[in-house]
């Protein structure tokens, strides 16, 4: 087989995989609607549990990570760019680094490490232990009762964690800016607000929404795809986390490019150049 054939085959496999993932996502949201009669109480409970495991239990690690990112951004800004651009631009540096790129990306990575692996392993083991079959035979659609709440709860969690990450990183950056160059709060947060455009907020929302849909659909898809052997579970977990990471980075890249084209690259980067 020539290398052209191999590239073509890999491309077709990727298209097929993305098509299955989209169909799975469509089915999950369709079941949200057509499966309303299958009980809202248990569905709501599942969503809340997912938010608890994915968001509430991750607030500590996310806040620590965000604090470190905010501090590093300011320290690097002061030591590296401060001489070139002036201390008043520190707020812009934090905004560009944190809001536009790092917050949604690092939050997504942490969610993949904590929750995508957990969801895939849980659903995979449920498949192996015939728990999903038991739900089917009770007349309870597993897509509605297991998959849809994890995707909905995951999206809520990812958005909440991104907001927490951004807030903590900005606050951490401000504290360090105060200590290093005694930057007044008005100047710092004024710079943050002036550097934040509506497009940044939309981009953060789009990255969270599409990135979240991609990573949680991937987690559930690989979990539900496990057969009857326990040895399939670690393989599914490994595939799900890697594919979710690739999807997340891909979504981030696409949204960033779209925003750059939409807003005008020169004005977006103008603050730094």
């Amino acid at each position, binding site marked *: 087989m020539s290398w052209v054939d191999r590239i073509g085959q890999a491309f077709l496999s990727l298209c097929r995989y993305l098509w299955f993932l989209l169909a799975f996502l469509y089915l999950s949201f369709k079941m949200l609607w057509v499966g309303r009669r299958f009980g809202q109480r248990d569905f709501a409970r599942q969503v809340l549990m997912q938010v608890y495991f994915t968001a509430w239990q991750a607030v500590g690690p996310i806040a620590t990570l965000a604090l470190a990112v905010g501090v590093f951004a300011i320290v690097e800004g002061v030591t590296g760019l401060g001489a070139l651009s002036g201390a008043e631009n520190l707020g812009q540096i934090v905004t560009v680094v944190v809001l536009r790129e790092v917050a949604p990306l690092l939050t997504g990575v942490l969610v993949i490490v904590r929750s995508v692996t957990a969801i895939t392993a*849980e659903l995979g083991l449920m498949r192996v232990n015939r728990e999903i079959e038991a739900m089917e*035979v*009770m007349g309870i659609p597993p897509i509605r009762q297991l998959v849809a709440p994890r995707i909905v709860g995951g999206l809520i969690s990812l958005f909440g964690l991104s907001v927490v990450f951004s807030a903590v990183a900005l606050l951490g950056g401000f504290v360090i800016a105060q200590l290093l160059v005694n930057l007044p709060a008005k100047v710092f947060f004024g710079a943050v607000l002036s550097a934040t455009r509506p497009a940044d907020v939309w981009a953060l929302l789009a990255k969270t929404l599409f990135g979240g849909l991609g990573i949680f659909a991937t987690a559930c898809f690989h979990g539900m795809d496990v057969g009857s052997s326990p040895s399939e579970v670690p393989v599914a977990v490994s595939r799900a986390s890697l594919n979710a990471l690739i999807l997340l980075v891909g979504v981030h890249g696409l949204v960033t490019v779209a925003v750059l084209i939409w807003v005008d690259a020169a004005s977006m980067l103008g603050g730094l150049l």
Partner: protein
Amino acid sequence: MTAIAHAADGLWLPVGAAVLHVPPFACPPGDRLLLVPDRREETGDVAAGLARVLTGLQAPTRGQLALFGQPLASLPYLETLQMRTRLGLVQGRGALLSNRTVHDNVALPLSVHGGLSHPDEAARVTALLADLELLAVQDLRPHVLDDAARFRACAARALVLQPQWLVVEGMGDFEAGAQGSHTWQRLLHHVDAVQGAVAVCLPRPLAAFEHLWASHGGRRLVCPIAHHLPELPPGAA
């Protein structure tokens, strides 16, 4: 009277490397059917395969099963789910949801399909758990239970919606012996109370259980195991 379960031409299903043939049968309400393979099959899980086919989780290789007068193969997914609220399956290893307590496992079908208030739901579940000697373990997760308790909890979950077609897979991992016998005595009391039809799928011939079943008025259907699926007669679909 319409049969609850009906396989006019019998059913064929794979069990490991062999094929199991279920002769034609019809189960009217009140019927108690014991499906027994004619010999021990070493390569496949006969009881699980049979139970999956009898509840519509798996299509037979040949033949068609109709439940409540409707052929399963032609039912759309949502209607199949709706129909399944009228049947119960007791899985051999008691496939209870591992992230819920025993009580929550038994309450799940009621909370989704029952339409009862929370106190009514809790009362019905508690009564069933008490009757199956599970009250002491109702707040535990399934993995800490022994096989017999897990099997009883799975039975409670299958019975909680008062099914019209109850399928019992195997006998649990505990099978024969004093513990198994005690569990079955308690279960048969509930099986007798099911107003619809009941099918128990045995993994292999078990004389002691077959005798117990006959004493409760149940009938027995022997299912031969073949090495290959036989050729269809000329002209057959």
